[in-house]
């Protein structure tokens, strides 16, 4: 019986795991062309942005200094919010990898648009679920097969300049705190009530 359950569990697991041999495995960031010019400027410089409230003005266009038809294969532009190295310290789930499918530098998508040869601009309000941290903006040029072919970012290569900071929402509410207190008090008080009842019952037994 144990063997059957084990085998069944194994089958269940295997059927749920997607094949790791995806098409774009092994595609490296270092082979991408830096042919996009991207800027990401917060509304006010030097101020910590509040998630859900403050805005970042993002602009992207093809670099004029690049090759003539560098954008020939572009079908979509995907703009993402990326962690600066300082926000990656001691957080392996945000680690930068050269292999694109492993890379976790830019988990938050800002916008994904069909490629337009004209310069684009967007006023983006920082999403409610963006964590506290220091960020920059990166745009990927994606071809018809969904593969990245080029990129551009608002920071330098070392990702130390032109960064901006975000303060996340706390997610807490006064109503939650009140509920916590109420339920906790209820638990402890009912424990005391039970104790008193037990003692009374024991005294009754003694009298019999």
């Amino acid at each position: 019986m144990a063997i059957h359950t084990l085998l069944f569990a194994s089958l269940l697991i295997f059927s749920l795991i997607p094949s790791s041999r995806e098409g774009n495995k092994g595609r490296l960031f270092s082979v991408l062309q830096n042919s996009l010019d991207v800027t990401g400027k917060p509304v006010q410089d030097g101020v910590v942005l509040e998630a859900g409230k403050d805005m970042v003005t993002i602009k992207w266009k093809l670099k004029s200094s690049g090759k003539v038809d560098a954008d020939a294969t572009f079908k979509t532009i995907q703009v993402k919010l990326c962690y600066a190295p300082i926000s990656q310290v001691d957080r392996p789930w945000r680690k930068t990898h050269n292999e694109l499918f492993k890379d976790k530098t830019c988990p938050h998508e800002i916008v994904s648009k069909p490629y337009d040869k004209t310069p684009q601009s967007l006023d983006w309000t920082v999403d409610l679920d963006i964590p506290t941290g220091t960020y920059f903006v990166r745009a990927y040029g994606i071809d018809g097969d969904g593969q990245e072919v080029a990129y551009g970012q608002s920071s330098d290569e070392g990702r130390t300049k032109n960064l901006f900071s975000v303060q996340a929402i706390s997610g807490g509410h006064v109503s939650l705190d009140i509920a916590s207190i109420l339920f906790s008090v209820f638990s402890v008080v009912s424990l005391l009530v039970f104790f008193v009842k037990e003692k009374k019952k024991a005294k009754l037994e003694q009298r019999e």
Partner: protein
Amino acid sequence: MEVEGKGGEAGTTTTATRRFALPVDAENKSTTFRLFSVAKPHMRAFHLSWFQFFCCFVSTFAAPPLLPIIRENLNLTATDIGNAGIASVSGSVFARIVMGTACDLFGPRLASAALTLSTAPAVYFTAGIKSPIGFIMVRFFAGFSLATFVSTQFWMSSMFSGPVVGSANGIAAGWGNLGGGATQLIMPIVFSLIRRMGATKFTAWRIAFFIPGLFQTLSAFAVLLFGQDLPDGDYWAMHKSGEKEKDDVGKVISNGISNYRGWITALAYGYCFGVELTIDNIIAEYFFDRFHLNLQTAGIIAASFGLANFFARPGGGIFSDLMARRFGMRGRLWAWWIVQTLGGVLCAFLGQIHSLTWSIVVMLIFSVFVQAACGLTFGVVPFISRRSLGVISGMTGAGGNVGAVLTQLIFFKGSTYSRETGITLMGIMSIACSLPICFIYFPQWGGMFCGPSSKKVTEEDYYLAEWSAKEKAKNLHLASQKFAETSVSERGRASTHPQT
């Protein structure tokens, strides 16, 4: 509120006139185990106790599956998460030791419900934490509730007789430990339901924690309302009516800690249950990072490790009882040592495997062995001491958590060892720390490598040695006497020990 009259039954009637739904021995402990019954008091105690323990496990490990959200909300670092993991299992080291004595004094019903109700606030307050310190603290205090393990084992050892105590202990603990796996599935589902109702990510996870908190509170109520400490009644009621004499705390504790077998079981349990707890904390991350799976997949794999407890740990307990029927206590010891050592070997193996498929296969087999070893441990523990059963159970249980704390500190904190090396080293340490099982020796039954003492020591001699002549004159030892009589079954079928 109508409370069932458990104490009333025990008050004035004699044992001869009491009737139980199941066949019982001289101590009124059930000699059979009927899983689908909820008959008072034996099977009811079983179902109440495993469910309460299950709820505590769900609460203690409710955070790991939601960590990807929580770590972003609270801006946690990997160090914070590691510390919180250690905190979650370290609180109950102390709590398990105390729980053993509390059970000896107040009875498992009150002791366990008191712990469960007083740690529920930690789970509720998780909804309001705003910083890494808050996170570490709520995980620390919520983790105390894992001490309900000791009350589970104590309660089962009080309700079920020798031939079935291993099975009862194993199933109760296994189904409780199941909570560590179930929570990896439950919490993400609750979270997404709450999200669907419109809450933001960073609020939804907070609301989700009320579910384990509520279940913990309600399970404690069930134990208090429907449970009973002993087949004959409740501790307090029985104390007052004189049926159960109150024992001297100091003597109970000193008798327990001076029994070297309790220390060996504590160490060995640290390297089966301790390994299980460590894996509960690190395995999802291991699969996520090493094989680049997405979080849901890593979570399902993590859950399957804990879910094996449904049959693996009970299997260990049942196997222990089966071995005892034929080979007595020596069979229990051999089975335990072999299964635990094999678990260590598989663990060492797991860290060396590079393929995803084989990692999962080895992990599943490893989970069965390590959890069965936990079940086999508590096939032996009820026999080490009768007077200080609670203390021995507490020590052993605490040893499990100490093993988890030590292992995480040595092999899984910071970046000294890669995760895979840590897992291999943990396996090797398991093998080493299982060797002391070879040194457990009962003069009346023998040990792994030696037969029973040539001095023809009886079970009565062993268990009554825990009481002084003065205490025996006061008839304090009668429960131990009855236990000694029923434990003769641990000689096994082919008895080389002549009847005295």
